[in-house]
């Protein structure tokens, strides 16, 4: 009965130890391990969803007014406060936050921070769609908050002003450049200008339509005349 154990004991003498030779050989974390946070300020639209969603309040943001109509925003990710749940990554609509597989987070607590800054224009006022709109829906598709609603058939454009984060992405994606942020006091004037422009646009459209119809009629008449001529022959 001793023999199998003895064999195992002897074979173990010649096998490698099961201990990981860690500091000498670096051990990679398993795929999808949630480690050190990386933040890309270029992608960030400052919607603040990660700050809202973070349970241990590890994410904070600060603003610094630069004075020339722009401001510098900084996102701080406190790694000694983080639970590494990955919720910020899931909620980030532009994939600016990633939890990397780097687990070597050792040292002074003051160094265990991830930070990133961006400089954006300060946007005040509410989003306004001008008369040039062609209802293409580019703003609707690119809105990180998905609060713009465009219907091509009924030619409606709607936005939920309360939920707008004023990131300005819709403005940059608009092919007609008709989106603008309008102040409260200029709102009535903008509406008026839009209505007037729309009247002009409609009149032009009606004119164009009439011209097109007339051209089509003329073409049809010419064709009929040709057909009649052919029949006469």
């Amino acid at each position, binding site marked *: 009965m001793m023999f199998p154990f003895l064999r195992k004991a002897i074979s173990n003498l010649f096998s490698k130890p099961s201990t*990981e030779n860690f500091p000498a050989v670096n051990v990679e974390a398993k795929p999808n391990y949630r480690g050190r946070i990386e933040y890309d300020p270029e992608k960030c639209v400052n919607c603040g969803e990660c700050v809202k969603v973070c349970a241990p309040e590890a994410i904070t943001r600060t603003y610094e007014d630069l004075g020339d109509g722009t401001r510098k925003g900084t996102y701080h990710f406190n790694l000694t*406060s*983080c639970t590494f749940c990955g919720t910020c990554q899931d909620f980030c609509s532009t994939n600016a936050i990633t939890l990397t597989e780097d687990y070597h987070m050792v040292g002074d607590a003051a160094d265990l921070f991830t930070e990133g800054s961006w400089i954006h224009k300060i946007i005040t006022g509410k989003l306004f769609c001008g008369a040039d709109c062609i209802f293409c829906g580019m703003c609707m598709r690119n809105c990180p908050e998905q609060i713009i609603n465009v219907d091509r058939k009924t030619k409606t454009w709607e936005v939920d002003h309360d939920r707008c984060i004023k990131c300005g992405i819709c403005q940059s994606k608009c092919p007609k450049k008709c989106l603008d942020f309008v102040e409260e006091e200029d709102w009535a004037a903008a509406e008026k200008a839009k209505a007037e422009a729309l009247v002009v646009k409609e009149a032009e459209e009606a004119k164009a339509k009439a011209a097109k119809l007339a051209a089509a009629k003329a073409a049809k008449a010419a064709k009929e005349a040709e057909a009649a001529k052919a029949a006469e022959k």
Partner: protein
Amino acid sequence: MFKKMIADSMSKSPWIYHVNTGSCNGCDIELVAVLTPRYDAERFGFKLAGTPRHADIVVVSGPITSQSKERLLRTLEQVPEPRCIVTLGSCPQSGNVFKGSYSVEAPIEKFVHVDVAIAGCTPKPEAVIEGLYKAAMILKEKREAMKK
């Protein structure tokens, strides 16, 4: 000659004392895993001490509940100098998800100076080894500074 031998051997056997101040047990399990044959921190001389009076490195885990705060401080007072305090995980550094609770005295920095912070929730055993090794290095420096 003997003094040098003792100093050398002491730097190669830092004893750990582990204090759990209301931790969820995740970090504690990882610390114990570090001492098992797979990760084997005893290669570097780390050994769990039974009492704080024998310890060189104190590993604190947990968000420091109001109940355990006094006991933590009493334990830390018993650890002889030079000592090194290591925080395990996010909890002792900030309170983690328990932040703002009436029964949590979160940042440990309020009471004692922390030498090494290991971040993670929970940290990987490799990260724990790294942190302990760093603590051992700091301990060595402190011991040399004390001699002068």
